Protein backbone atom coordinates (compact mmCIF):
# COMPACT_ATOMS: atom_id res chain seq x y z
CA UNK A 1 0.00 0.00 0.00
CA UNK A 2 1.66 3.24 -1.20
CA UNK A 3 2.40 6.21 0.83
CA UNK A 4 -0.23 8.95 0.77
CA UNK A 5 -3.14 6.48 0.55
CA UNK A 6 -5.60 6.83 3.36
CA UNK A 7 -8.32 4.38 4.10
CA UNK A 8 -11.86 5.60 4.59
CA UNK A 9 -11.48 4.84 8.24
CA UNK A 10 -8.34 6.93 8.60
CA UNK A 11 -9.95 9.80 6.74
CA UNK A 12 -12.93 9.65 9.03
CA UNK A 13 -10.85 9.75 12.19
CA UNK A 14 -8.77 12.64 10.83
CA UNK A 15 -11.90 14.58 9.99
CA UNK A 16 -13.36 13.86 13.36
CA UNK A 17 -10.18 15.04 15.12
CA UNK A 18 -10.22 18.25 13.06
CA UNK A 19 -13.86 18.74 13.90
CA UNK A 20 -13.34 18.54 17.65
CA UNK A 21 -10.22 20.67 17.35
CA UNK A 22 -12.19 23.42 15.58
CA UNK A 23 -15.07 23.18 18.02
CA UNK A 24 -12.89 24.55 20.80
CA UNK A 25 -12.13 27.80 18.94
CA UNK A 26 -15.47 28.39 17.34
CA UNK A 27 -16.37 31.83 16.06
CA UNK A 28 -18.84 33.03 13.48
CA UNK A 29 -16.37 32.57 10.59
CA UNK A 30 -15.24 29.18 11.71
CA UNK A 31 -18.77 28.02 12.13
CA UNK A 32 -19.61 27.39 8.48
CA UNK A 33 -16.32 25.55 7.95
CA UNK A 34 -16.89 23.27 10.92
CA UNK A 35 -20.51 22.74 10.02
CA UNK A 36 -19.34 21.65 6.56
CA UNK A 37 -16.86 19.20 8.00
CA UNK A 38 -19.45 17.79 10.35
CA UNK A 39 -21.88 17.33 7.50
CA UNK A 40 -19.15 15.48 5.62
CA UNK A 41 -18.51 13.21 8.57
CA UNK A 42 -22.19 12.50 9.01
CA UNK A 43 -22.57 11.79 5.29
CA UNK A 44 -19.48 9.57 5.44
CA UNK A 45 -21.13 7.55 8.18
CA UNK A 46 -23.99 6.88 5.85
CA UNK A 47 -26.54 8.87 7.82
CA UNK A 48 -29.38 9.95 5.61
CA UNK A 49 -30.13 12.94 7.79
CA UNK A 50 -26.78 14.10 9.08
CA UNK A 51 -27.31 15.49 12.49
CA UNK A 52 -25.24 13.96 15.27
CA UNK A 53 -22.15 16.06 14.65
CA UNK A 54 -23.83 19.00 13.02
CA UNK A 55 -23.86 22.37 14.63
CA UNK A 56 -27.35 23.38 13.60
CA UNK A 57 -28.56 23.16 17.16
CA UNK A 58 -25.65 25.22 18.44
CA UNK A 59 -26.36 27.92 15.88
CA UNK A 60 -30.03 27.99 16.82
CA UNK A 61 -29.28 28.24 20.50
CA UNK A 62 -27.18 31.30 19.75
CA UNK A 63 -30.09 33.01 17.97
CA UNK A 64 -32.68 32.26 20.62
CA UNK A 65 -31.11 31.89 24.00
CA UNK A 66 -33.14 30.44 26.78
CA UNK A 67 -34.18 32.76 29.56
CA UNK A 68 -35.59 30.18 31.96
CA UNK A 69 -37.95 27.23 31.94
CA UNK A 70 -40.93 26.05 33.91
CA UNK A 71 -42.67 22.68 33.96
CA UNK A 72 -46.26 21.62 34.27
CA UNK A 73 -48.49 18.87 35.59
CA UNK A 74 -52.12 19.03 34.50
CA UNK A 75 -55.51 17.34 34.49
CA UNK A 76 -54.85 14.65 37.09
CA UNK A 77 -58.60 14.02 37.73
CA UNK A 78 -58.09 12.41 41.13
CA UNK A 79 -60.80 10.36 42.74
CA UNK A 80 -60.50 9.31 46.35
CA UNK A 81 -57.44 7.10 46.53
CA UNK A 82 -59.47 4.11 47.80
CA UNK A 83 -61.64 4.34 44.68
CA UNK A 84 -59.08 4.77 41.95
CA UNK A 85 -55.40 4.04 42.41
CA UNK A 86 -54.45 4.45 38.76
CA UNK A 87 -54.88 8.22 38.64
CA UNK A 88 -52.96 8.47 41.91
CA UNK A 89 -50.07 6.48 40.43
CA UNK A 90 -50.13 8.82 37.43
CA UNK A 91 -49.80 12.04 39.40
CA UNK A 92 -47.03 10.46 41.49
CA UNK A 93 -45.21 9.62 38.28
CA UNK A 94 -45.69 13.20 37.13
CA UNK A 95 -44.25 14.55 40.37
CA UNK A 96 -41.22 12.27 39.98
CA UNK A 97 -40.95 13.51 36.41
CA UNK A 98 -40.68 17.18 37.23
CA UNK A 99 -38.53 16.52 40.30
CA UNK A 100 -36.06 14.66 38.09
CA UNK A 101 -35.62 17.62 35.73
CA UNK A 102 -32.03 18.83 35.71
CA UNK A 103 -31.72 21.76 35.84
CA UNK A 104 -34.84 22.21 37.92
CA UNK A 105 -37.59 24.38 36.43
CA UNK A 106 -38.12 27.81 38.02
CA UNK A 107 -41.63 26.74 38.97
CA UNK A 108 -44.25 24.10 38.21
CA UNK A 109 -47.67 25.10 36.90
CA UNK A 110 -50.57 22.90 37.90
CA UNK A 111 -52.95 23.21 34.96
CA UNK A 112 -56.33 22.50 36.61
CA UNK A 113 -58.67 19.51 37.11
CA UNK A 114 -56.78 18.29 40.14
CA UNK A 115 -59.98 16.50 41.27
CA UNK A 116 -62.48 14.48 39.24
CA UNK A 117 -65.67 15.47 41.07
CA UNK A 118 -64.54 18.49 43.10
CA UNK A 119 -64.81 16.63 46.40
CA UNK A 120 -62.84 17.80 49.44
CA UNK A 121 -61.05 14.44 49.76
CA UNK A 122 -59.97 14.54 46.13
CA UNK A 123 -58.65 18.09 46.36
CA UNK A 124 -56.88 17.44 49.66
CA UNK A 125 -55.26 14.29 48.24
CA UNK A 126 -53.98 16.34 45.30
CA UNK A 127 -52.72 19.13 47.52
CA UNK A 128 -50.86 16.60 49.64
CA UNK A 129 -49.21 14.93 46.66
CA UNK A 130 -48.21 18.24 45.07
CA UNK A 131 -46.36 19.17 48.28
CA UNK A 132 -43.70 16.71 47.12
CA UNK A 133 -42.87 18.92 44.12
CA UNK A 134 -39.44 20.47 44.76
CA UNK A 135 -39.97 23.64 42.70
CA UNK A 136 -42.60 26.22 43.73
CA UNK A 137 -46.08 25.29 42.43
CA UNK A 138 -48.47 27.75 40.75
CA UNK A 139 -52.07 26.55 40.90
CA UNK A 140 -54.79 26.94 38.27
CA UNK A 141 -58.38 25.81 38.68
CA UNK A 142 -60.34 23.53 36.31
CA UNK A 143 -64.05 22.79 35.98
CA UNK A 144 -63.70 19.45 37.77
CA UNK A 145 -62.39 21.33 40.83
CA UNK A 146 -65.13 23.92 40.76
CA UNK A 147 -68.69 22.83 40.14
CA UNK A 148 -69.45 20.81 43.27
CA UNK A 149 -69.12 23.73 45.69
CA UNK A 150 -68.38 26.50 43.17
CA UNK A 151 -64.71 26.55 44.11
CA UNK A 152 -65.12 26.91 47.86
CA UNK A 153 -62.79 24.08 48.90
CA UNK A 154 -60.31 24.87 46.14
CA UNK A 155 -60.03 28.51 47.26
CA UNK A 156 -59.61 27.41 50.85
CA UNK A 157 -56.69 25.17 49.85
CA UNK A 158 -55.01 27.21 47.14
CA UNK A 159 -56.23 30.82 47.37
CA UNK A 160 -57.68 33.03 44.66
CA UNK A 161 -57.98 31.36 41.23
CA UNK A 162 -57.24 34.60 39.34
CA UNK A 163 -53.86 36.28 39.83
CA UNK A 164 -50.75 37.56 38.12
CA UNK A 165 -47.03 37.64 38.86
CA UNK A 166 -43.76 38.68 37.26
CA UNK A 167 -40.82 36.38 36.76
CA UNK A 168 -37.48 37.23 35.13
CA UNK A 169 -38.97 39.97 32.98
CA UNK A 170 -42.07 38.01 31.91
CA UNK A 171 -45.57 38.91 33.09
CA UNK A 172 -47.69 35.87 33.96
CA UNK A 173 -51.48 35.84 34.28
CA UNK A 174 -53.53 32.94 35.68
CA UNK A 175 -57.23 32.96 34.76
CA UNK A 176 -60.27 31.01 35.85
CA UNK A 177 -61.67 30.36 32.38
CA UNK A 178 -64.19 27.64 33.29
CA UNK A 179 -67.07 29.72 34.61
CA UNK A 180 -70.47 28.79 33.18
CA UNK A 181 -73.83 30.46 33.05
CA UNK A 182 -76.36 28.91 35.45
CA UNK A 183 -77.91 25.83 33.82
CA UNK A 184 -78.62 24.01 37.10
CA UNK A 185 -81.10 26.11 39.10
CA UNK A 186 -83.90 25.82 36.59
CA UNK A 187 -83.38 22.08 36.32
CA UNK A 188 -83.24 21.71 40.10
CA UNK A 189 -79.88 19.89 40.12
CA UNK A 190 -78.12 18.98 43.34
CA UNK A 191 -74.49 20.15 43.55
CA UNK A 192 -73.30 16.62 42.67
CA UNK A 193 -75.66 16.39 39.70
CA UNK A 194 -74.33 19.72 38.48
CA UNK A 195 -70.77 18.51 38.97
CA UNK A 196 -71.38 15.30 37.05
CA UNK A 197 -72.95 17.14 34.13
CA UNK A 198 -69.93 19.46 33.88
CA UNK A 199 -67.58 16.48 34.28
CA UNK A 200 -69.00 14.91 31.11
CA UNK A 201 -67.69 16.17 27.81
CA UNK A 202 -70.33 15.02 25.37
CA UNK A 203 -73.56 16.21 26.94
CA UNK A 204 -75.28 19.28 25.63
CA UNK A 205 -76.78 20.22 28.99
CA UNK A 206 -74.07 22.43 30.41
CA UNK A 207 -73.26 25.98 29.33
CA UNK A 208 -70.02 26.88 27.56
CA UNK A 209 -66.92 28.04 29.45
CA UNK A 210 -66.25 31.73 29.86
CA UNK A 211 -63.81 34.05 31.59
CA UNK A 212 -66.67 36.43 32.27
CA UNK A 213 -67.00 40.21 32.35
CA UNK A 214 -65.72 40.61 35.91
CA UNK A 215 -62.43 38.80 35.24
CA UNK A 216 -61.98 40.51 31.87
CA UNK A 217 -62.26 43.83 33.70
CA UNK A 218 -59.64 42.62 36.17
CA UNK A 219 -57.39 41.48 33.31
CA UNK A 220 -57.69 44.84 31.59
CA UNK A 221 -56.65 46.64 34.79
CA UNK A 222 -53.83 44.19 35.49
CA UNK A 223 -52.41 44.54 31.97
CA UNK A 224 -52.69 48.34 32.02
CA UNK A 225 -49.66 48.41 34.34
CA UNK A 226 -47.55 46.25 32.00
CA UNK A 227 -45.31 47.57 29.22
CA UNK A 228 -46.45 46.35 25.80
CA UNK A 229 -42.94 45.06 25.07
CA UNK A 230 -42.98 42.79 28.12
CA UNK A 231 -43.49 39.16 27.11
CA UNK A 232 -46.84 37.94 28.37
CA UNK A 233 -47.71 34.34 29.31
CA UNK A 234 -51.33 33.53 30.16
CA UNK A 235 -52.48 30.32 31.86
CA UNK A 236 -56.07 29.24 31.30
CA UNK A 237 -57.64 25.85 31.88
CA UNK A 238 -59.80 25.87 28.75
CA UNK A 239 -58.24 26.88 25.43
CA UNK A 240 -58.65 30.65 25.04
CA UNK A 241 -59.99 30.15 21.55
CA UNK A 242 -62.82 28.30 19.86
CA UNK A 243 -61.84 24.76 18.93
CA UNK A 244 -64.87 22.44 19.30
CA UNK A 245 -68.02 23.68 20.96
CA UNK A 246 -69.85 20.34 21.60
CA UNK A 247 -67.04 19.19 23.91
CA UNK A 248 -66.41 22.58 25.50
CA UNK A 249 -62.94 22.69 23.92
CA UNK A 250 -63.96 26.28 23.89
CA UNK A 251 -64.13 29.60 25.72
CA UNK A 252 -67.20 31.59 24.81
CA UNK A 253 -65.65 35.03 25.34
CA UNK A 254 -62.28 34.03 23.86
CA UNK A 255 -62.45 36.84 21.28
CA UNK A 256 -62.89 39.47 23.98
CA UNK A 257 -59.98 38.07 26.00
CA UNK A 258 -57.76 37.90 22.91
CA UNK A 259 -58.58 41.56 22.21
CA UNK A 260 -57.08 42.46 25.60
CA UNK A 261 -53.90 40.53 24.77
CA UNK A 262 -53.50 41.89 21.24
CA UNK A 263 -51.61 45.13 22.10
CA UNK A 264 -48.67 43.11 23.45
CA UNK A 265 -45.72 42.15 21.26
CA UNK A 266 -45.34 38.60 22.44
CA UNK A 267 -48.15 36.58 24.02
CA UNK A 268 -48.30 32.86 24.83
CA UNK A 269 -51.33 31.05 26.21
CA UNK A 270 -50.75 27.71 27.94
CA UNK A 271 -53.98 25.81 28.53
CA UNK A 272 -55.12 22.43 29.89
CA UNK A 273 -58.47 20.66 29.48
CA UNK A 274 -57.86 19.15 26.03
CA UNK A 275 -55.44 16.38 27.13
CA UNK A 276 -53.52 16.40 23.84
CA UNK A 277 -50.72 17.98 21.84
CA UNK A 278 -52.37 21.12 20.53
CA UNK A 279 -50.82 24.11 18.77
CA UNK A 280 -52.44 27.28 17.53
CA UNK A 281 -51.49 30.84 16.60
CA UNK A 282 -53.84 33.78 16.22
CA UNK A 283 -52.07 37.02 15.32
CA UNK A 284 -49.49 37.68 18.02
CA UNK A 285 -50.78 34.96 20.34
CA UNK A 286 -49.27 31.46 20.48
CA UNK A 287 -51.38 28.73 22.08
CA UNK A 288 -50.12 25.46 23.51
CA UNK A 289 -52.11 22.65 25.12
CA UNK A 290 -51.00 20.57 28.05
CA UNK A 291 -50.98 16.80 28.50
CA UNK A 292 -53.09 15.10 31.14
CA UNK A 293 -51.79 12.48 33.55
CA UNK A 294 -55.16 10.68 33.70
CA UNK A 295 -56.21 9.95 30.11
CA UNK A 296 -55.78 11.42 26.62
CA UNK A 297 -58.70 12.94 24.72
CA UNK A 298 -59.20 12.17 21.04
CA UNK A 299 -58.84 15.05 18.59
CA UNK A 300 -62.21 16.65 17.93
CA UNK A 301 -63.89 15.75 14.62
CA UNK A 302 -63.62 19.35 13.40
CA UNK A 303 -62.08 22.70 14.28
CA UNK A 304 -58.53 21.41 14.84
CA UNK A 305 -56.11 24.37 14.41
CA UNK A 306 -54.10 23.90 11.23
CA UNK A 307 -50.73 24.36 12.98
CA UNK A 308 -51.41 21.39 15.25
CA UNK A 309 -49.26 18.37 14.51
CA UNK A 310 -51.25 15.59 16.16
CA UNK A 311 -49.64 13.27 18.63
CA UNK A 312 -49.72 9.64 17.54
CA UNK A 313 -52.95 7.91 18.42
CA UNK A 314 -52.69 6.68 22.02
CA UNK A 315 -52.30 2.96 22.59
CA UNK A 316 -55.24 1.88 24.75
CA UNK A 317 -53.21 -1.09 25.94
CA UNK A 318 -50.87 1.16 27.87
CA UNK A 319 -52.02 2.80 31.10
CA UNK A 320 -49.74 5.76 30.47
CA UNK A 321 -49.70 6.27 26.71
CA UNK A 322 -50.75 9.66 25.35
CA UNK A 323 -50.21 11.19 28.78
CA UNK A 324 -47.34 12.91 30.47
CA UNK A 325 -46.03 16.22 31.69
CA UNK A 326 -44.25 19.04 29.93
CA UNK A 327 -41.75 21.82 30.00
CA UNK A 328 -41.93 25.34 28.66
CA UNK A 329 -38.62 26.95 27.72
CA UNK A 330 -39.03 30.72 27.70
CA UNK A 331 -36.61 32.20 25.19
CA UNK A 332 -34.82 35.53 25.40
CA UNK A 333 -37.23 37.06 22.89
CA UNK A 334 -40.19 36.04 25.08
CA UNK A 335 -41.57 33.29 22.84
CA UNK A 336 -41.55 29.73 24.13
CA UNK A 337 -40.46 26.28 23.02
CA UNK A 338 -43.10 23.86 24.27
CA UNK A 339 -41.85 20.40 25.13
CA UNK A 340 -44.43 17.65 25.46
CA UNK A 341 -42.83 15.00 27.65
CA UNK A 342 -45.01 12.08 26.61
CA UNK A 343 -44.53 9.09 28.85
CA UNK A 344 -42.80 6.08 27.25
CA UNK A 345 -42.52 7.93 23.94
CA UNK A 346 -40.08 10.28 22.30
CA UNK A 347 -40.90 13.81 23.51
CA UNK A 348 -42.37 16.30 21.04
CA UNK A 349 -40.91 19.77 20.89
CA UNK A 350 -43.06 22.51 19.36
CA UNK A 351 -40.63 25.35 18.79
CA UNK A 352 -41.25 29.06 18.86
CA UNK A 353 -39.72 29.22 15.38
CA UNK A 354 -42.35 26.77 14.09
CA UNK A 355 -45.15 29.09 15.20
CA UNK A 356 -43.36 32.30 14.20
CA UNK A 357 -42.77 30.94 10.68
CA UNK A 358 -46.40 29.88 10.49
CA UNK A 359 -45.45 26.25 10.23
CA UNK A 360 -42.76 26.66 7.54
CA UNK A 361 -39.76 25.96 9.79
CA UNK A 362 -38.96 23.36 12.43
CA UNK A 363 -42.15 21.36 12.10
CA UNK A 364 -42.50 18.65 14.77
CA UNK A 365 -42.42 15.09 13.38
CA UNK A 366 -45.67 13.92 11.79
CA UNK A 367 -47.74 11.21 13.50
CA UNK A 368 -47.68 7.73 11.99
CA UNK A 369 -51.26 7.08 13.11
CA UNK A 370 -53.35 10.25 13.41
CA UNK A 371 -56.98 10.29 14.56
CA UNK A 372 -59.53 8.47 12.47
Amino acid sequence: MGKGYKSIETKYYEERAAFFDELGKLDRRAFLRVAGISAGIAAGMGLVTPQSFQLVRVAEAQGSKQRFSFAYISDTHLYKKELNDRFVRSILRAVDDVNALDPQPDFVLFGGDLAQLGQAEELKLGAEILKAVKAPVKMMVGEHDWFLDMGEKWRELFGAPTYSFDHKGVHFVVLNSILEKDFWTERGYTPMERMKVVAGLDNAIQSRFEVGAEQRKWLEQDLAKVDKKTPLIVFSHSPLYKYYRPWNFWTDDADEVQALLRPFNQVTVIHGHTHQVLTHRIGNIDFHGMLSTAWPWPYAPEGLPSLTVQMNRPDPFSNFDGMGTGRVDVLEAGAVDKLYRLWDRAPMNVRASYLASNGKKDAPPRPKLPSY
Partner: protein
Amino acid sequence: MTYRKKLLTGLCALLSGVGGAALATDSAPGERPRHELPPSKDGNLVLGLCDGETSLEVKGVKEGEPLSRAQALEVTSQLMQEWRRKNPDARWDVVAQAPTPPPSPRKPSAGKSNQAEGPTASSGAAGMAGKKDANVQTGHTYGAFSERDEALWAASTQAFVEEGNRVFHDADALGSKVAVSCDMCHPDAANTHPETYPKYQVQFGRVALLRDMINWCIENPVRGKPLADDDPKMKAMEAYIYSKRKGVPLEFGKH
Protein backbone atom coordinates in the same frame (compact mmCIF):
# COMPACT_ATOMS: atom_id res chain seq x y z
CA MET B 1 -92.46 -3.18 34.26
CA THR B 2 -91.48 -6.80 33.82
CA TYR B 3 -89.93 -8.07 30.66
CA ARG B 4 -93.07 -9.99 29.78
CA LYS B 5 -95.25 -6.98 30.21
CA LYS B 6 -92.89 -5.03 28.01
CA LEU B 7 -93.23 -7.76 25.42
CA LEU B 8 -96.97 -7.55 25.65
CA THR B 9 -96.98 -3.79 25.36
CA GLY B 10 -94.72 -4.15 22.36
CA LEU B 11 -97.18 -6.53 20.74
CA CYS B 12 -100.00 -4.13 21.41
CA ALA B 13 -97.93 -1.36 19.89
CA LEU B 14 -97.68 -3.41 16.74
CA LEU B 15 -101.41 -3.90 16.71
CA SER B 16 -101.96 -0.20 16.42
CA GLY B 17 -99.66 2.60 15.44
CA VAL B 18 -101.52 5.03 17.65
CA GLY B 19 -100.57 3.12 20.74
CA GLY B 20 -96.99 2.92 19.57
CA ALA B 21 -96.72 6.63 19.03
CA ALA B 22 -98.20 7.26 22.45
CA LEU B 23 -95.58 4.98 24.01
CA ALA B 24 -92.70 6.64 22.25
CA THR B 25 -93.53 10.17 23.33
CA ASP B 26 -95.25 10.19 26.62
CA SER B 27 -94.55 13.81 27.41
CA ALA B 28 -97.97 15.43 27.21
CA PRO B 29 -100.49 12.96 28.61
CA GLY B 30 -103.26 15.55 28.78
CA GLU B 31 -103.40 16.02 25.05
CA ARG B 32 -104.26 12.53 23.94
CA PRO B 33 -106.99 10.09 24.85
CA ARG B 34 -106.38 7.81 27.73
CA HIS B 35 -107.67 4.29 27.83
CA GLU B 36 -109.44 3.95 31.17
CA LEU B 37 -109.43 0.26 32.05
CA PRO B 38 -112.37 -1.12 33.97
CA PRO B 39 -111.17 -2.25 37.39
CA SER B 40 -111.47 -5.94 38.19
CA LYS B 41 -113.72 -6.82 41.10
CA ASP B 42 -111.36 -9.60 42.17
CA GLY B 43 -108.20 -7.49 41.84
CA ASN B 44 -107.20 -9.37 38.69
CA LEU B 45 -104.86 -7.90 36.10
CA VAL B 46 -106.70 -5.92 33.42
CA LEU B 47 -105.02 -5.22 30.11
CA GLY B 48 -106.11 -2.83 27.40
CA LEU B 49 -105.78 -3.13 23.65
CA CYS B 50 -104.29 -0.19 21.88
CA ASP B 51 -107.48 0.61 20.02
CA GLY B 52 -108.30 2.45 23.21
CA GLU B 53 -111.52 0.52 23.72
CA THR B 54 -111.03 -3.18 24.18
CA SER B 55 -109.86 -4.57 27.50
CA LEU B 56 -109.43 -7.99 29.01
CA GLU B 57 -109.39 -9.27 32.54
CA VAL B 58 -106.79 -11.97 33.06
CA LYS B 59 -108.29 -14.55 35.37
CA GLY B 60 -105.96 -16.00 37.95
CA VAL B 61 -103.34 -13.24 37.68
CA LYS B 62 -103.49 -10.45 40.24
CA GLU B 63 -102.59 -6.85 39.45
CA GLY B 64 -98.84 -6.41 39.73
CA GLU B 65 -98.03 -10.10 39.18
CA PRO B 66 -95.97 -11.14 36.16
CA LEU B 67 -97.47 -13.14 33.31
CA SER B 68 -95.85 -16.32 32.10
CA ARG B 69 -94.93 -16.41 28.45
CA ALA B 70 -97.77 -18.82 27.73
CA GLN B 71 -100.26 -16.56 29.50
CA ALA B 72 -98.98 -13.50 27.66
CA LEU B 73 -99.38 -15.23 24.31
CA GLU B 74 -102.86 -16.35 25.28
CA VAL B 75 -103.83 -12.80 26.27
CA THR B 76 -102.52 -11.22 23.07
CA SER B 77 -104.25 -13.86 20.99
CA GLN B 78 -107.55 -13.21 22.77
CA LEU B 79 -107.21 -9.46 22.33
CA MET B 80 -106.42 -9.90 18.65
CA GLN B 81 -109.41 -12.17 18.19
CA GLU B 82 -111.58 -9.61 19.88
CA TRP B 83 -110.30 -6.90 17.57
CA ARG B 84 -110.93 -9.06 14.51
CA ARG B 85 -114.44 -9.74 15.72
CA LYS B 86 -115.09 -5.99 16.09
CA ASN B 87 -113.50 -5.23 12.74
CA PRO B 88 -114.50 -8.11 10.50
CA ASP B 89 -113.49 -6.40 7.24
CA ALA B 90 -110.26 -4.74 8.34
CA ARG B 91 -106.68 -5.96 8.01
CA TRP B 92 -104.54 -4.94 10.96
CA ASP B 93 -101.45 -4.29 8.88
CA VAL B 94 -103.32 -1.94 6.58
CA VAL B 95 -105.13 -0.27 9.45
CA ALA B 96 -101.76 0.54 10.96
CA GLN B 97 -101.10 2.69 7.87
CA ALA B 98 -104.29 4.67 8.17
CA PRO B 99 -104.05 8.32 9.08
CA THR B 100 -104.23 9.12 12.79
CA PRO B 101 -107.83 8.44 13.76
CA PRO B 102 -109.79 10.95 15.77
CA PRO B 103 -109.56 10.42 19.49
CA SER B 104 -112.02 7.86 20.75
CA PRO B 105 -114.80 9.30 22.82
CA ARG B 106 -114.21 8.84 26.49
CA LYS B 107 -116.92 6.72 27.83
CA PRO B 108 -117.07 4.39 30.72
CA SER B 109 -116.46 0.96 29.26
CA ALA B 110 -116.78 -1.08 32.43
CA GLY B 111 -118.71 -4.23 31.80
CA LYS B 112 -119.02 -3.55 28.08
CA SER B 113 -115.54 -4.39 26.98
CA ASN B 114 -116.39 -7.55 25.15
CA GLN B 115 -119.48 -6.37 23.34
CA ALA B 116 -119.49 -6.57 19.60
CA GLU B 117 -119.57 -3.06 18.15
CA GLY B 118 -118.57 -3.64 14.57
CA PRO B 119 -115.87 -1.51 12.91
CA THR B 120 -114.69 1.30 15.15
CA ALA B 121 -113.15 4.62 14.17
CA SER B 122 -109.68 3.43 15.10
CA SER B 123 -109.91 0.35 12.92
CA GLY B 124 -109.41 2.62 9.90
CA ALA B 125 -111.63 0.63 7.59
CA ALA B 126 -112.73 3.81 5.82
CA GLY B 127 -109.15 4.90 5.25
CA MET B 128 -108.37 1.51 3.85
CA ALA B 129 -111.17 1.77 1.35
CA GLY B 130 -109.84 5.17 0.24
CA LYS B 131 -106.43 3.69 -0.46
CA LYS B 132 -107.74 0.82 -2.52
CA ASP B 133 -106.97 2.41 -5.89
CA ALA B 134 -103.53 3.89 -5.08
CA ASN B 135 -100.99 2.76 -7.67
CA VAL B 136 -98.58 1.10 -5.23
CA GLN B 137 -97.52 -2.51 -5.09
CA THR B 138 -99.30 -4.19 -2.23
CA GLY B 139 -100.17 -7.62 -1.11
CA HIS B 140 -96.82 -8.58 0.31
CA THR B 141 -95.00 -7.70 3.53
CA TYR B 142 -92.96 -4.71 2.37
CA GLY B 143 -95.76 -3.26 0.30
CA ALA B 144 -97.78 -2.82 3.45
CA PHE B 145 -95.30 -0.66 5.35
CA SER B 146 -95.94 3.02 5.71
CA GLU B 147 -94.07 6.09 6.87
CA ARG B 148 -95.57 5.60 10.25
CA ASP B 149 -94.14 2.10 10.46
CA GLU B 150 -90.76 3.51 9.63
CA ALA B 151 -91.14 6.18 12.28
CA LEU B 152 -91.92 3.47 14.79
CA TRP B 153 -88.92 1.42 13.80
CA ALA B 154 -86.69 4.48 13.97
CA ALA B 155 -87.99 5.21 17.46
CA SER B 156 -87.30 1.64 18.57
CA THR B 157 -83.80 1.76 17.13
CA GLN B 158 -83.17 5.11 18.77
CA ALA B 159 -84.30 3.72 22.12
CA PHE B 160 -81.80 0.88 21.70
CA VAL B 161 -79.04 3.36 20.87
CA GLU B 162 -80.02 5.50 23.86
CA GLU B 163 -79.66 2.51 26.15
CA GLY B 164 -76.15 2.04 24.75
CA ASN B 165 -75.48 5.73 25.31
CA ARG B 166 -76.53 5.34 28.93
CA VAL B 167 -74.32 2.30 29.59
CA PHE B 168 -71.38 3.92 27.78
CA HIS B 169 -71.57 6.88 30.17
CA ASP B 170 -72.31 4.96 33.37
CA ALA B 171 -69.37 3.54 35.31
CA ASP B 172 -71.71 1.56 37.58
CA ALA B 173 -73.60 -0.04 34.70
CA LEU B 174 -70.22 -1.07 33.27
CA GLY B 175 -69.26 -2.61 36.60
CA SER B 176 -66.23 -0.34 36.98
CA LYS B 177 -64.29 -0.66 40.21
CA VAL B 178 -62.44 2.60 39.56
CA ALA B 179 -65.36 4.88 38.56
CA VAL B 180 -64.21 5.02 34.94
CA SER B 181 -66.70 5.01 32.05
CA CYS B 182 -66.14 4.72 28.30
CA ASP B 183 -66.95 8.38 27.53
CA MET B 184 -64.03 9.56 29.65
CA CYS B 185 -61.67 8.61 26.80
CA HIS B 186 -64.24 8.42 23.99
CA PRO B 187 -66.57 11.45 24.04
CA ASP B 188 -69.32 10.87 21.47
CA ALA B 189 -67.67 7.47 20.97
CA ALA B 190 -64.78 9.23 19.22
CA ASN B 191 -61.74 7.09 18.40
CA THR B 192 -63.70 3.84 18.64
CA HIS B 193 -63.69 3.48 14.83
CA PRO B 194 -66.19 0.59 14.61
CA GLU B 195 -65.97 0.71 10.81
CA THR B 196 -62.44 -0.71 10.91
CA TYR B 197 -63.37 -4.04 12.53
CA PRO B 198 -62.74 -6.88 12.14
CA LYS B 199 -59.03 -6.22 12.07
CA TYR B 200 -55.83 -7.70 13.30
CA GLN B 201 -55.35 -6.27 16.77
CA VAL B 202 -51.64 -6.46 17.26
CA GLN B 203 -51.90 -6.22 21.06
CA PHE B 204 -54.11 -9.34 21.10
CA GLY B 205 -52.12 -11.14 18.46
CA ARG B 206 -55.33 -12.07 16.67
CA VAL B 207 -58.20 -10.66 14.66
CA ALA B 208 -60.67 -8.76 16.83
CA LEU B 209 -64.23 -7.52 16.52
CA LEU B 210 -65.51 -4.27 17.97
CA ARG B 211 -66.98 -6.16 20.91
CA ASP B 212 -63.57 -7.66 21.71
CA MET B 213 -62.22 -4.15 22.08
CA ILE B 214 -65.25 -3.07 24.13
CA ASN B 215 -64.61 -5.98 26.45
CA TRP B 216 -60.93 -5.24 26.57
CA CYS B 217 -61.69 -1.70 27.67
CA ILE B 218 -64.22 -2.93 30.23
CA GLU B 219 -61.63 -5.28 31.72
CA ASN B 220 -58.66 -2.93 31.71
CA PRO B 221 -59.14 0.84 31.88
CA VAL B 222 -62.66 0.43 33.30
CA ARG B 223 -61.74 -2.53 35.52
CA GLY B 224 -65.03 -4.36 35.26
CA LYS B 225 -66.05 -7.87 34.25
CA PRO B 226 -66.21 -8.50 30.50
CA LEU B 227 -69.71 -8.91 29.05
CA ALA B 228 -70.99 -11.95 27.17
CA ASP B 229 -71.18 -11.38 23.40
CA ASP B 230 -74.98 -11.41 23.57
CA ASP B 231 -75.31 -9.37 26.76
CA PRO B 232 -77.98 -6.70 26.17
CA LYS B 233 -75.51 -4.06 27.40
CA MET B 234 -72.95 -5.17 24.85
CA LYS B 235 -75.53 -5.09 22.04
CA ALA B 236 -76.74 -1.67 23.09
CA MET B 237 -73.22 -0.25 23.26
CA GLU B 238 -72.42 -1.61 19.82
CA ALA B 239 -75.59 0.08 18.58
CA TYR B 240 -74.56 3.39 20.17
CA ILE B 241 -71.01 3.24 18.80
CA TYR B 242 -72.20 2.40 15.27
CA SER B 243 -74.81 5.15 15.42
CA LYS B 244 -72.04 7.68 15.97
CA ARG B 245 -70.27 6.67 12.76
CA LYS B 246 -73.27 6.81 10.45
CA GLY B 247 -72.17 7.61 6.92
CA VAL B 248 -68.53 6.62 7.45
CA PRO B 249 -67.44 4.05 4.84
CA LEU B 250 -66.84 0.54 6.08
CA GLU B 251 -63.12 -0.15 6.03
CA PHE B 252 -62.65 -3.42 7.80
CA GLY B 253 -59.04 -4.26 8.51
CA LYS B 254 -57.91 -0.63 8.53
CA HIS B 255 -55.33 0.47 11.09
